[in-house]
């Protein structure tokens, strides 16, 4: 199968009719090209959407309060509901074990100054677990520590956009660690920097200790939000936890059980599940369309191989008369089809990858970023090609087997 002569035979036959070979190759290359490009665009859409909505890891439950709409137990409607430190501690007691837990106070549009440069950014007071919950990608220094929380230290972890905007051009992340910035007029030491690739919103943020932020920027013991990491708990389990927490919070904060807006418990697992379903649907669709295109290409190859066999009936007869067994002939035809498929498939694969890489920098968008071909789907496509190649050659090869060497003796 892999000797030099078999390959020479293939090159001979493939090259002896360049137009036919070219057209067949084109249909396959196009099929793979479409598959790869669509797959890449799907991946781009997925990562774009994830960047936009993904300011927190998907395995979290978010707890926050809002405006109660209904009168309940003597409270008037349309009132503000707040979660205080005491409520937050009691909430924590409701759960046995929690993989990650972070409080949040949030101040957007906060002035941050370094040297003479200043700008408006988002300040987030958080707990150390926020690193895991928000999947913060540190580029230098460290994240907030429990000690920072306890001692209410004035330390900050700044996003890549601040580094870019406020610091001299080309300052490496390491150089920013140890400097001081003014947050709303108060001096903070920079202990770390982070860069959430592709997320402009995240990178405009500054993390400071929750306790510090609550004291300096809020002047009350209200907790803006609680993020609860659910680890690798199953979705049903997180659903149950969310429902329990919601019921408990409504009772504690005196919110009517039917009130939809007083207390919010968002199970991000739920959203992630929906996204997962949407994207697996898109992936399935992409593969389906790609496979159909490939199938059309494969039919083209089968057709061409059928013509090849028909055209070469006499030659196959002669080869048989000269001692070729049917096995050798079938092997040659199958090998030829697979070879054709693989070469043109690789061309399509390369063209698709090249196109995706070419357009990638130009199409950054909130819902679209970093379109790419992953290695597994490329391998999968090649596997499909080989399979389709063999299948498309079987029909013509069987025809070739039925050609009797007598054909060689027949003169037109």
């Amino acid at each position, binding site marked *: 199968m892999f000797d030099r002569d078999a390959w020479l035979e293939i090159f001979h036959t493939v090259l002896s009719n360049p137009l036919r070979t070219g057209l067949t190759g084109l249909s396959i290359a196009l099929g793979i090209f479409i598959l790869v490009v669509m797959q890449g665009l799907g991946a781009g859409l997925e990562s774009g959407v994830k960047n936009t909505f993904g300011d927190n890891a998907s395995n979290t439950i978010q707890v926050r309060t809002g405006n109660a709409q209904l009168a309940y137990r003597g409270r008037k409607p349309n009132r503000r509901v707040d979660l205080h430190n005491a409520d937050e501690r009691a909430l924590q007691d409701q759960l046995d074990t929690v993989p990650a837990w972070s409080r949040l106070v949030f101040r957007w549009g906060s002035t941050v100054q370094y040297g003479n440069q200043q700008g408006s950014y988002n300040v987030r007071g958080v707990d150390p677990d926020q690193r895991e919950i928000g999947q913060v990608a540190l580029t230098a220094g460290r994240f907030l520590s429990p000690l920072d929380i306890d001692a209410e230290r004035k330390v900050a972890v700044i996003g890549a956009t601040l580094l870019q905007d406020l610091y001299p051009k080309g300052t490496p992340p390491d150089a920013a660690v140890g400097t001081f910035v003014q947050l709303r007029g108060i001096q903070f030491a920079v202990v770390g920097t982070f860069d959430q690739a592709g997320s402009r919103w995240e990178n405009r943020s500054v993390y400071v200790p929750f306790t510090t932020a609550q004291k300096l920027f809020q002047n009350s013991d209200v907790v803006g939000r609680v993020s609860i990491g659910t680890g690798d708990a199953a979705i049903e389990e997180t659903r149950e936890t969310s429902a329990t927490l919601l019921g408990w919070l409504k009772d504690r904060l005196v919110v009517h059980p039917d009130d939809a807006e007083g207390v919010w418990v968002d199970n991000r697992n739920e959203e992630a599940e929906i996204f997962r379903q949407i994207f697996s649907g898109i992936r399935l669709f992409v593969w389906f369309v790609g496979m159909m295109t490939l199938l059309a290409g494969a039919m083209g190859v089968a057709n061409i191989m059928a013509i090849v066999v028909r055209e070469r009936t006499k030659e196959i007869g002669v080869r048989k008369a000269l*001692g070729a*067994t049917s096995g050798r002939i079938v092997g040659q035809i199958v090998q030829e089809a697979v070879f054709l498929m693989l070469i043109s498939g690789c061309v399509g694969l390369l063209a698709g990858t090249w196109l995706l890489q070419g357009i990638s920098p130009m199409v950054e968008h909130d819902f679209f970023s970093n379109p790419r071909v992953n290695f597994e789907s490329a391998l999968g496509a090649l596997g499909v090609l080989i399979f389709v190649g063999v299948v498309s050659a079987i029909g013509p090869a069987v025809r070739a087997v039925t050609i009797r060497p007598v054909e*060689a003796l027949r003169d037109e």
Partner: protein
Amino acid sequence: MLEIGCFHRNYRILHAAEYGARYLRAVIKLQGIRKSYQTGAQSMEVLKGIDCSIAAGELVAIMGSSGSGKSTLLNVLGLLDDFDAGTYHLDGQDMSGLSEKQAARYRSEFLGFVFQSFNLIGYKTALENVALPLYYQGVPRKERQEKAMRFLEKVGLADWSNHLPNQMSGGQKQRVAIARALIANPRVILADEPTGALDSTTSEDVMELLKEINREGITIVVVTHEHEIAEQCHRIIRLKDGCIEDQMKSQHV
């Protein structure tokens, strides 16, 4: 029907005995070979019991009008087609009921073919065409090409080894085909109208080449309808309506 169809049977057996005495070993031995083709609901008997023996080193012509069964006989001899009844011994081995694979093996070991329309592969050079049977015998490439070159020299076409068939004349093509038939060192060469597509001068050249090969000891069976060709052979077998009509020794031998 058998009696009516083959009323020359006694005559032929006499001849067979005579030739059996002259040549020690029969390389081809046919006994009662029958072959019929199914055309729709009807079955048409093309060979109606052929008995004949061809000895090693013989140069035999098979003649007959079209429809006499001579092509079918050649197909049977060449293991290109099976037969319904009778026995066929090639080089002492029974050839009945062969699988396709076995037939392919015997063809490549025992037989060489020369066709009327040459049947060279158009996109292969003369050298590659000659080497092709050895490819199917699994002979290494280098050895194959050296051997093919020797055989091209033998048929006087060493200078044409790298030419494609369509760059050659009919006579040259047939000589390439003969070299191809010879390369696997066959016992028998079966030639189907080898001069059918050639003019008389070239026909003569090709016939001289076949005779020379025969003188080296290779048995040759030529199917032809040209008397000038047939008369150069040792023996002429005449077919008519699927039976051997007569056999005669050529005066030229």
